[in-house]
């Protein structure tokens, strides 16, 4: 028989009955025998000097915190939100923390330097389909970043060849089971490498996170409204051109859809995306040059942008580029983007002259990728929405 063990238990009393209490400790619930327990103690924090006997924990001395002023648990309170459904929210927060630890270990090992870039910037990017929050009360107009791209490219030009940031980004009006207006992005860049190297990084990152969080590489749980069919996450992943994806999953052709960009996005989001990346993830490559964003044109196929997106179970997890480093072409594109925003009646954000200045001083040839960290964690933990892997989604503020 094991000898009796003394320990100090700490937690919240969530149930009292028959001379016993349920103590919700950080590690999980404990049953503790305590002769003085009575119902009014439910909801109070307690520190118990207890002895573990063959019949369970027995309290010897108990210090109680103050009684909650409100009813416990409050139906809309935080305790139920985190402890309901067998503490699923807490389990996911632990998984999230483990994911960021694993990620940092992996990237440090690959020689990447972690950088922290500002959240409030002079220009949030000019992409026609992104809306930014304006920050009031600063000396000059400021916006919350939609991605850390401009500042990270300035660091590349400043001579840091391998960098990554795990940072909050903000996108106005984006809210749904796969979107939150405030979310976390993993963005990384390699100087003197091309998009191909970034795709291999992407495979390795997802595979490593899957092993760390699930103990394997086969995705076996439904998440984010998508049904998993045992997707194999280990690389190499499939590669599929935009044109082939449209031909395979729809009755349209890329050329026909490009005549009207809105039709392209309607067909892409409704008919193509939901079918991508089920057996194994897929990189969608060869994006039309008109959708290059900040990517260079493909060195071998100039009708296409050197851009890729990865999909897992119909869910886009990242968007990467062989980066545009030509300052003249970059300025021309930004001016075009401003014009498009003006024509669409959208706010016209300023051009970031220091970003262009970095390109003018010289950006090394490089490639970068931006991955939705919350989406990847949600996929690996079977979370129904991205908010479910955040401590506080926007609905709970």
């Amino acid at each position, binding site marked *: 028989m094991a000898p009796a063990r003394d320990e100090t238990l700490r937690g919240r009393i969530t149930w009292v009955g028959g001379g016993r209490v349920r103590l919700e400790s950080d590690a999980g619930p404990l049953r503790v025998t305590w002769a003085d327990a009575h119902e009014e103690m439910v909801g109070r924090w307690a520190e118990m000097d207890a002895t573990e006997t063959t019949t369970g924990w027995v309290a010897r001395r108990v210090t109680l915190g103050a009684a909650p002023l409100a009813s416990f648990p409050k139906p809309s309170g935080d305790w139920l939100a985190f402890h309901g459904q067998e503490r699923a929210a807490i389990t996911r927060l632990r998984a999230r923390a483990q994911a960021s630890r694993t990620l940092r270990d992996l990237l440090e090992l690959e020689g990447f330097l972690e950088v922290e870039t500002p959240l409030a910037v002079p220009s949030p990017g000019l992409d026609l389909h992104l809306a930014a929050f304006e920050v009031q009360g600063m000396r000059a107009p400021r916006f919350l970043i939609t991605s850390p791209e401009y500042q990270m490219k300035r660091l590349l030009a400043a001579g840091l060849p391998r960098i990554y940031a795990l940072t909050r980004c903000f996108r106005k009006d984006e809210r749904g089971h796969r979107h939150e207006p405030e979310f976390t992005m993993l963005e990384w860049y390699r100087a003197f490498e091309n998009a191909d190297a970034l795709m291999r990084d992407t495979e390795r990152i997802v595979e490593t996170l899957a092993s760390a969080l699930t103990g394997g590489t086969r995705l076996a749980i439904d998440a984010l*409204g998508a049904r998993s069919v045992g997707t194999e996450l280990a690389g190499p992943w499939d590669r599929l051109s935009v044109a082939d994806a449209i031909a395979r999953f729809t009755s349209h052709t890329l050329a026909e859809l490009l005549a009207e960009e809105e039709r392209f996005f309607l067909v892409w*989001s409704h008919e193509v*995306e939901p079918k991508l990346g089920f057996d194994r993830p897929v990189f969608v490559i060869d994006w039309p040059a008109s959708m290059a964003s900040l990517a260079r044109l493909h060195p071998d196929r100039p009708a296409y942008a050197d851009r890729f997106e990865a999909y897992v179970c119909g869910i886009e997890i990242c968007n990467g580029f062989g980066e545009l480093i030509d300052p003249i072409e970059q300025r021309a594109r930004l001016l075009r983007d401003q014009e498009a925003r003006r024509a669409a009646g959208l706010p016209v954000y300023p051009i970031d002259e220091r970003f262009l200045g970095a390109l003018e001083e010289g950006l090394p040839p490089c490639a970068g990728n931006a991955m939705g960290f919350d989406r990847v964690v949600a996929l690996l933990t079977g979370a129904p929405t991205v908010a479910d892997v955040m401590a506080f989604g926007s609905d709970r503020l």
Partner: protein
Amino acid sequence: MYEMSDIRKNLKVVLDGAPWTIVEFQFVKPGKGQAFTRTRVRNLLTGNVVERTFKSNESLEKADIEERQYSFSYKEGDSYVFMETKTFEQLHLNQEQLGEAVAFMQDGMLVDVLFWNEKPIGVTPPTFVELKVVETEPGFKGDTSTNTLKAAKMDTGATVMVPLFINEGETLKVDTRTGEYVERVRTK
């Protein structure tokens, strides 16, 4: 007007000149692409459910929909007379306006009446009602199987498919959403 960011379940909107309710919605947006709100909507006049997708800059007209509780008073010719439970205001509805609810009307029954622009467009009876069998083939004693069904006419005029062991004069619990038999009610 509702903006796309206002969309939520059960919102009542006007589309193509008819009132609809949002059953389901999903925000869809490729990272570098245009955003859409994909919805499933139910027509409040016909009950039809269809899929509709809206662009992020679209806005939807708010449908003036109101639901009020009435109790059924009596039938007068072709007209069914109801009384609002709060204001005691009277409301006359014909058979067509009552729709499928007409088969379940009992004196004093509480119903929810849906109004669109102050015009009644739908009547929802209680989910479960107790109805008396007035006409059915004689029951087979001892046959407690619920797999085989026969037709039974109820005191409100509804025809319900019931198990073979049910007899005339018995009271049954019926689900008004499906018109299906639920169980036998013991009457004291």
